[in-house]
């Protein structure tokens, strides 16, 4: 979709720190990781000269349909259940090292983010996903391992 640099270009670039971040660039990074939302920058939201940028950024981050809490969408028509993402997902490996982490059937379904059901990947327990929660980080495990781009974060 976009990157932090492009977002930065649309911000006020005053580094006023009202968002709680040390700079506009830091705010852009927080936007990308979904730690903060566009409303968290008061000047952007309130000052009319930024209206256009604000709307554009909001558009980029509006929660889309079908998205789960982390913004994860599975394109079920594309996914063919190869399980690459299931086996590569770091919390899956940590929570079930000898099951999915070793390429096998899950043994700890209640704590797995991704599993394959009826030949299509299913996302659940999103609290475990690294893109979720307080210490969230940008994880690409399931994206780079998918041969058909069936997983997307919005």
């Amino acid at each position, binding site marked *: 979709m976009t990157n932090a640099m492009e977002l930065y270009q649309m911000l006020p670039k005053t580094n006023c720190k009202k968002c709680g971040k040390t700079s506009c660039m830091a705010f852009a990074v927080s936007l990308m990781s979904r730690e903060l939302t566009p409303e968290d920058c008061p000047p952007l939201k309130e000052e009319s000269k930024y209206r256009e940028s604000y709307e554009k950024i909001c558009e980029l981050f509006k929660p889309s349909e079908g998205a789960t809490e982390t913004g994860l969408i599975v394109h079920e028509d594309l996914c*063919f259940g*190869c*399980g*690459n993402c299931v086996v*590569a997902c770091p919390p899956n490996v940590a929570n079930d090292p000898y099951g999915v982490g070793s*390429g096998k059937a899950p043994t700890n379904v209640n704590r797995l983010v991704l599993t394959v059901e009826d030949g299509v990947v299913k996302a659940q327990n999103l609290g475990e996903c690294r893109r979720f929660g307080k210490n969230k980080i940008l994880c690409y495990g399931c994206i780079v391992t998918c041969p058909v781009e069936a997983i997307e974060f919005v």
Partner: protein
Amino acid sequence: MEKNYYVCTGCGLLCDDIEVESEKNIINKVYTACRVGVAHMKNAKGETNFLVDNKPVDEATAVREAASILKNAKNPLIFGLGTSTDETQKLAIELAKKTNATLDDTSSFCLGPLVEALLQDKLKTCTLEDVRNKADVIIFWGADPSDSHPRHLSKHSYFPRGSEKQKGWEEERTAIAIDVRKSHTAKICGNYFFQIPPGGDTEFIDALIAALSGKLPKTSYKYPPKKILELANILKGAKFGVIFAGLGLIYSLEDLEPVFRLMKVLNEKANFHLVPMVGHYNMRGFNENLFAETGYVNRVKFEDGIVKHGPEYSVVESLKAKTVDAALIIGSDPLSSLPRSVSKNLLEIPVISIDPCETLTSKHAKIYINTAVSGVEAGGSATRMDGTKVSFKPVVETVHPSDEAILKKIMEAV
């Protein structure tokens, strides 16, 4: 609670960790299998069918007619069996002996030579568990497992943790694709995708051997020498390397000699294994069973207790030369898969089709016997692509007879 796992017979990977929810012999949900496997397992059918000249008959009639075709033929062809159990394959070999038949399977025009070389100990090989536990350099050559064996990378070859590979694929494994097109597997391999022109495999092997020996790698299609040297360096560093050889590689070679040469050099510089990317779930089993019985993996002709072997006994050559005068085809659809110029000769001889699915071949057959889906409705054992034996039980019960049961009855009647 101990989980009840089933084996998927959707491809040569024979995944053995599938959970199934079923009710009244209908499969409702399948866990962990890929889409191909799910489609295979949910391929539920209605009534059983026994057709003679496209008219419904009972089982006894169909069996009797089939036996009489085989009895009256001088040189029947028995073909297929890639999706049949070991037990069925062994029966088919016995039946071929009894009826003086020509016996062949699809391996004669795909991976047969490679499996033969492995059975004759001409190439170093390993199991898929070894790959998971130890492999650090994995080459997919003329193979696209992401399409043909969807769980290959996740269950064995690239992503899983193994006993000696605990840090994960990013750090501990290098996956390489050598292919004529950017396949789904090649995409996963990223920078380690080496795209070569169609038919360019032999030259690429020679260039790679040169690079491994410290010489300048040259190809007529001007593959950047730097890239080949880079590849050679990775291969030299392999502690446990494996080449997954697919049809793309085999079709491009005149014979296996370049593969032998490459494997020899690779094993002088490093440690490399080769595993054939067998497609049908038990094609390798057919090769092994026939090899145990006759010393050949395919293309044989039985004649009064002796075995003849040669290219003229392949399905393609024997149909081309019209040397066979009837055909028993088990779990295969040569009318769709063989070139029309060859398969059209099947229309001139009586054909018995034994298949869980209606196919073009079954539609044109004199006799069609609709059997249980092997591995889903009937159990048995099979050989995985890497040579590992796998036994399985049926997932659901069925009214359809297994191909094993049918062959037994035909055998008694001839």
